[in-house]
Structures are given as C-alpha cells and as structure tokens.
C-alpha cells in the first residue's frame, strides 16, 4: 500500500516570504496526486491535482502554484505568502478507481 510523506510538518512564515511544501509518495506508480487546504479545521478545498509528471490542474485561482517534477513528488509553492494562505495543507494520492489516501499534513501559519 502507498505511503505519503509531507514536509515540513509545521511552518511559520512571514507575509511576503516564499513557500515550498513537498509531498512524496511510496509504494505506487503513476498515481493521481492532489493538494488540499483545510481552513479552521473544517472543509477541504481542492487546490491542485495532477495526473502525471508536469501535468497540473488548478482548481482555484490564487497565490499558490504546484509542480510535479517526478512521478511521486508533488510540490506546492508560493512566491509571496499572504495571511490568507494560513491553513492545514494535505497531499493525497489515488491510483485507479480506488479511494484517495492522505498524507499527515503541513500546518502553515503566516504571520
């Protein structure tokens, strides 16, 4: 079964600073990968998804971008963070018609 790693676990960054969150997946190949944001411990907002290397679909126009440089690596970035970027960021993986599996998440606080 697949294992999803996210790095870092927590992050405190000032407004205007850059961001890079990393997600790596083990135990599967050619998965669909997803970035979600969860604000205030409630609903999940899908930010980006990828069906393959270099293929990124954006769900919501915003201050963030995503890249998939390798089959099992998915990166979430920003050039300049906003206060509203604070939240809990979750990476997820799906292969075939099965359920999505989620990583442990990164707690981002923008100050």
């Amino acid at each position, binding site marked *: 079964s697949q294992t*999803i790693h996210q790095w870092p676990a927590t992050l405190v960054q000032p407004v205007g600073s850059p961001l890079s969150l990393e997600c790596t997946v083990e135990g599967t190949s050619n998965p*669909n990968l*997803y970035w979600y944001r969860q604000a205030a*411990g*409630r*609903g*999940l907002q*899908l930010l980006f*998804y990828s069906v393959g290397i270099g293929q990124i679909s954006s769900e919501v126009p915003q201050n963030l971008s995503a890249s998939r440089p390798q089959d099992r690596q998915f990166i979430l970035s920003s050039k300049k963070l906003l206060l509203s970027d604070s939240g*809990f960021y*979750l990476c*997820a993986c*799906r292969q075939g*018609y099965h*359920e*999505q*599996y*989620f*990583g*442990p*998440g990164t*707690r981002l606080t923008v100050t």
Partner: protein
Amino acid sequence: AQSVAQPEDQVNVAEGNPLTVKCTYSVSGNPYLFWYVQYPNRGLQFLLKYITGDNLVKGSYGFEAEFNKSQTSFHLKKPSALVSDSALYFCAVRDRSTGKLIFGQGTTLQVKP
C-alpha cells in the same frame, strides 16, 4: 452539479450507545461514496467506501455505512461508540468524469464517557 451534504455540524453520543453521522448526496448516475475520519492535526484516514454491491458496507474500526439510493443517503453508523471515536468525519462522493472527490463540510463526533 454533484454535491454532498452533512446536515449536522456536531453529533454527541454517550459511550456505548449507537451512533449515526448523516450524509446525503446529489450526483448524476450511480455514486461512488466514501467516509473519512480526521483526528486533530492529522491527515484524513479512509474508513469505507461504496462502489457497488451490498447496500451495507463495513469498514475500519467497527464502522459501517448504509447506502440508500431512494433517499440518496450514505449514513455512517457504529453499534457502540467509543470515546476514541471522537473526531471529525467527512463524507465524499467521487465525480465520475474527473475522478475528484467532493467532500461534505464535516461532522464533529463527540463521544462522552
């Protein structure tokens, strides 16, 4: 448009009592339905899914869910709640054209000793 509704923000039950967390959906065609649980500051954990077959689906940690096509519901149930079941529960439906999951807003389950 496809959607999922969890009508209760919070459900409170006493330990040992049965619990139900409600979910209704709106999709075109046959739905793929999922339940996830999230503990504080953790990722979502998959509990169970309905794809096809028996309407009663059994999952992890003693949870089960009943698919009801006529009522477009997929309620999560457990015969006897534990304090450790206290968490945030999400229902989701899979968009069959895109493969994306559409999540409900979540229901906080509080099990009191």
